[in-house]
């Protein structure tokens, strides 16, 4: 039976979808059977960043409303045979979602997978609630700014009330140069406020948006520092003790951008 993990943040635009796709792909690269579920009903985009939009036939609302079976809606990723997507509907809104029905669907799906990653929408309303309901664990995504951290704190409080087992933190779009100039929150300060286990720091990297616009998952096509960060998250989720990358600020000129942490 698989691990059901919701990827959520409160704040929008911090990288939940990017992280769901890339961490999901990284877990699949490790040999795990993974399905990523787009819970952003009405504003779906997980299929777009994975380049699968023209392969979508059915979506989660079709299952919920009885128009298809579960495996008819699952879309297999282009490169990996153990990596699947369950798309969201673009025709409905989050108010149309029945939380119990979603819960039941995910409960059935998790029997066939090692990992079920639920890409939560922003906010704390019905969409968020439906993404959280079936989840047993959570990944909180923040960017290093006060708004994001405040929203995450709210969300963590709600998840604690719900009784979620394990919650870990991913800091996305981290720019060490800006942190050093004190224009961006330091990761230690973020961890201090939120009081969560830090499971990953993903550096700001142009290649991420670039590959999304081309409909390609970064970790499957490019090998750079962001890829390494995503892969490390997957390895830590699997129990490996991986030291954090030493993300030193970029030096102009000849010297290399990063070196491995001790």
């Amino acid at each position: 039976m698989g691990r059901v993990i919701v990827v959520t943040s409160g704040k929008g635009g911090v990288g939940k979808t990017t992280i769901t796709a890339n961490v999901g792909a990284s877990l699949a690269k490790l040999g795990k059977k993974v399905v990523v579920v787009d819970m952003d009903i009405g504003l779906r985009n997980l299929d777009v960043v994975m380049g699968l939009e023209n392969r979508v036939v059915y979506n989660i609302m079709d299952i919920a409303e009885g128009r298809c079976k579960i495996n008819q809606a699952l879309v297999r990723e282009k490169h990996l045979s153990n990596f699947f997507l369950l798309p969201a509907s673009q025709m409905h809104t989050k108010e149309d979602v029945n939380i119990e029905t979603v819960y039941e669907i995910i409960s059935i799906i998790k029997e066939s997978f090692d990992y079920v990653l639920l890409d939560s929408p922003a906010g704390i309303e019905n969409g968020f609630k439906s993404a959280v309901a079936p989840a047993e664990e959570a990944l909180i995504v923040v960017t290093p700014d006060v708004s994001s951290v405040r929203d995450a704190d709210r969300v963590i409080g709600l998840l604690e009330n719900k009784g979620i087992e394990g919650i870990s933190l991913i800091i996305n779009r981290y720019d060490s140069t800006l942190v050093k100039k004190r224009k961006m929150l330091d990761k230690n300060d973020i961890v201090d406020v939120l009081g969560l286990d830090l499971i990953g720091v993903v550096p700001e990297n142009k290649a991420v948006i670039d590959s999304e616009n081309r409909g390609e998952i970064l970790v499957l096509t490019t090998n750079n520092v962001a890829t390494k960060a995503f892969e490390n998250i997957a390895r830590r989720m699997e129990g490996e003790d991986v030291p954090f990358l030493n993300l030193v600020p970029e030096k102009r000129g000849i010297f290399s951008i990063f070196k491995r942490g001790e």
Partner: protein
Amino acid sequence: MEQPAIFKGTLEGITVILNPAFSKSEILSFLEKTLSERKVFFSGANIKVKPNGIDMNEETIKEMESLFKRFGITFTIEGIGTFAHKEKIDNGETSSQETIIIPHTIRSGQIISHNGNIVILGDINEGGEVNASGNIYVFGVIRGIVSAGESIVSLGFTPLRMTIGKIVFGNESNAKTYRKPRIAKVEEGKIVIKVLGEKKSLRR
């Protein structure tokens, strides 16, 4: 002594010396009568009992315990131990404000309000709020909104807003986290933050 028990006031508090010339039941009746007559005086008290030769067996201890419990009195039997009681007295008078303990950080969107004292085992995050009529004791730092009736103890004061009674904190001190707790209270119409247990220096 002519009475089954004598009540003595000392620097440490009230001592009850039992008289072995009387029977246990006589002693207990006398204690009950005295405590009833002077209920208000004894409420919330911490009494030391000297058996003075009386055999304090399990049954006697139990009887004494239920007696003092009715009056909300914590007592120590010399040579045996202390029995603490926080129950209300029969006629409904409470001897102390109730203290609640919240065993986690107060997160954004959470509000705790209580008529009494509050202990927080964690921080009060920026979007959180804690209100108490008495004192607030925070095993962490305050980033959010706090209001107390008497004082606030914390390891760090960078509140969004802090009020004690009707006085609002003007945030004159630098935002810092301390290794040892500080206390915020009202002095001369302003909220000041001081080291807990600060002693007056001998400087002139």
